[in-house]
């Protein structure tokens, strides 16, 4: 029996084996998805809301108001897009070019630097399917997929049987967690959990590199050298190793240089790959689309056909310096995720919020356009955390417009 599978766009894993029971445009049951995915799949509603100021308006008024804001702005900020489809992201890049905008996405304060290094081929990488079929050693460093990407271990990285890993996790796979606390993932790793103090990652990397070349590993926080040597021995024996790098590691390092050294050292002795633990469903897609267009993954400013890039064009810095005079926020809520001192500057400029849900940002926005939930009410393509493109289709129908449709209307009106 051929089954009708949907893709879950609840997180960066984009699980493509979700079965859904829906009736009259309401999702009743979701099979195989985790709790995050089920909540995401059941989010659809029929009603569309458009608002200018505090007043409900119709679609055309909201779009024309948004266009007016963008037209009047000298340097608008376009931000978000982590949950938009590749098509919507490409349109947003076009829109940014047309309006000489500053364009950024959440990766500027998340994993952007890592994805940029990956796209510049500075790390060896592989797909999650390779991980399932071949990986014998996986390291979760500064990440806790059991909570952030619940099906990561069961669908790809640890528990499933793969083509070259037929005997299962007990015999053929080793999972290692390196973290500052005993997370749920660390619990599954059991004895292979290495607890380091916050900020101790760079030192641990150096100690591990020393251990890999047979030297005595030393850390200022006196991590037992025996355990680091034990870890190095496991890593040396890996036939297909993968390091899943999370925010914990990236935030702890001043730059990625220690990570480059570690991967080089690992690849001298064994065969290691790196996959970033991307959180949103299509942040990686945005990074790739912008990289293709400009050579940068985030924090860019378009001006007279030229592209400028630098930390000053990220959302945090540009709001701090108040260099932007309007904002188009797509599928993101800076008011709840950015520091208050930064986010409050958004109150001083006109904000257009495109979001499926009411958020703090949408409530404080000049124009609010209620969009469809990508993957539930609208289709498209997205890029998984490992760079694989995944097509997704809507589960239910809605009157709400997708990000892509709204951006198209704004583009036409401009």
């Amino acid at each position: 029996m051929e089954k009708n599978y949907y893709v879950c766009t609840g997180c960066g894993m984009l699980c493509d084996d979700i079965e859904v029971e829906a009736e009259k445009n309401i999702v009743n049951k979701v099979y195989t998805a985790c709790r995050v995915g089920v909540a995401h799949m059941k989010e659809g509603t029929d009603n569309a809301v458009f608002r200018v100021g505090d007043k409900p308006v119709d679609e055309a008024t909201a779009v024309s108001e948004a266009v007016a804001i963008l037209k009047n702005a000298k340097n608008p900020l376009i931000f978000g897009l982590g949950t938009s489809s590749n098509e919507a992201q490409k349109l947003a890049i076009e829109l940014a070019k047309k309006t000489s905008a500053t364009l950024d996405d959440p990766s500027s304060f998340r994993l952007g630097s890592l994805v940029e290094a990956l796209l510049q081929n500075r790390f060896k990488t592989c797909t999650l399917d390779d991980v399932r079929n071949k990986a014998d050693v996986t390291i979760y460093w500064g990440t806790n997929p059991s909570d952030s990407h619940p099906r990561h271990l069961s669908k790809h990285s640890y528990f499933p049987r793969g083509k070259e890993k037929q005997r299962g996790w007990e015999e053929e796979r080793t999972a290692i967690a390196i973290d500052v606390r005993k997370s749920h993932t660390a619990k599954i790793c059991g004895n292979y959990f290495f607890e380091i103090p916050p900020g101790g990652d760079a030192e641990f990397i150096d100690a591990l590199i020393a251990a890999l070349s047979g030297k005595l590993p030393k850390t200022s926080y006196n991590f037992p050298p025996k355990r680091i040597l034990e870890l190095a021995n496991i890593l040396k024996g890996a036939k297909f190793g993968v390091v899943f790098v999370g925010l914990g590691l990236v935030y702890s390092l001043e730059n990625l240089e220690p990570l480059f050294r570690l991967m080089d050292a690992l690849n001298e002795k064994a065969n290691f790959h790196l996959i970033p633990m991307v959180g949103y469903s299509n942040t990686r897609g945005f990074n790739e689309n912008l990289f293709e267009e400009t050579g940068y993954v985030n924090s860019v400013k378009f001006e007279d056909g030229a592209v400028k890039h630098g930390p000053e064009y990220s959302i945090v810095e540009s709001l701090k310096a108040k260099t932007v005079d309007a904002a188009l926020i797509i599928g993101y809520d800076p008011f709840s995720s950015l520091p208050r001192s930064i986010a409050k500057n958004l109150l001083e400029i006109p904000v257009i919020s495109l979001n499926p849900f009411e958020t703090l940002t949408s409530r404080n926005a000049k124009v609010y356009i209620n969009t469809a939930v990508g993957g539930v009410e609208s289709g498209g393509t997205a890029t998984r955390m490992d760079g694989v493109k995944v097509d997704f289709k809507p589960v239910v129908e809605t009157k709400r417009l997708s990000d892509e449709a709204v951006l198209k209307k704004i583009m036409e009106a401009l």
Partner: protein
Amino acid sequence: MTNAMELYQMLPKTNCKKCGKTSCMAFAVALMAHELTPEDCPPLKEEPKYKENYEKISGLFKPSEGATETGLIVHEDLCFGCGNCVVACPPNVANDPYGVGSGNAPTNPNKLVLTVEDGVVKAQNLGECRRFGKNKILCNGCIVTCPVEAIEFV
């Protein structure tokens, strides 16, 4: 959970053989294995001096509320549907190697012990569970793989 020695201490220890076993210790072992029930020991059940012990032992073997035949309980409030147990469960892998055994959606849920439904694991087809029946073993594949201790056997 108690062990056979503790159970033995609460039995009459007369080796009367009325239960069909050769000794009270053998009866205690059979109790532990759920082969016999406390009612199978006539003196324990009938004689007033053992009443307290009888009630205590019966209490131990009363099936817990919400428990399935194999004693499996899913704490639905803890489970978040990661599916580790579904993929690790040996009968699941044997019955659906290319579906759940490979981390994917089940191809045929009819023979699976554990599936994820609405983000929470659901136990079914307990006849397939390795803890079921005469030749059962104390498999703990679903317990050790659960990050939040949402599965328990009682």
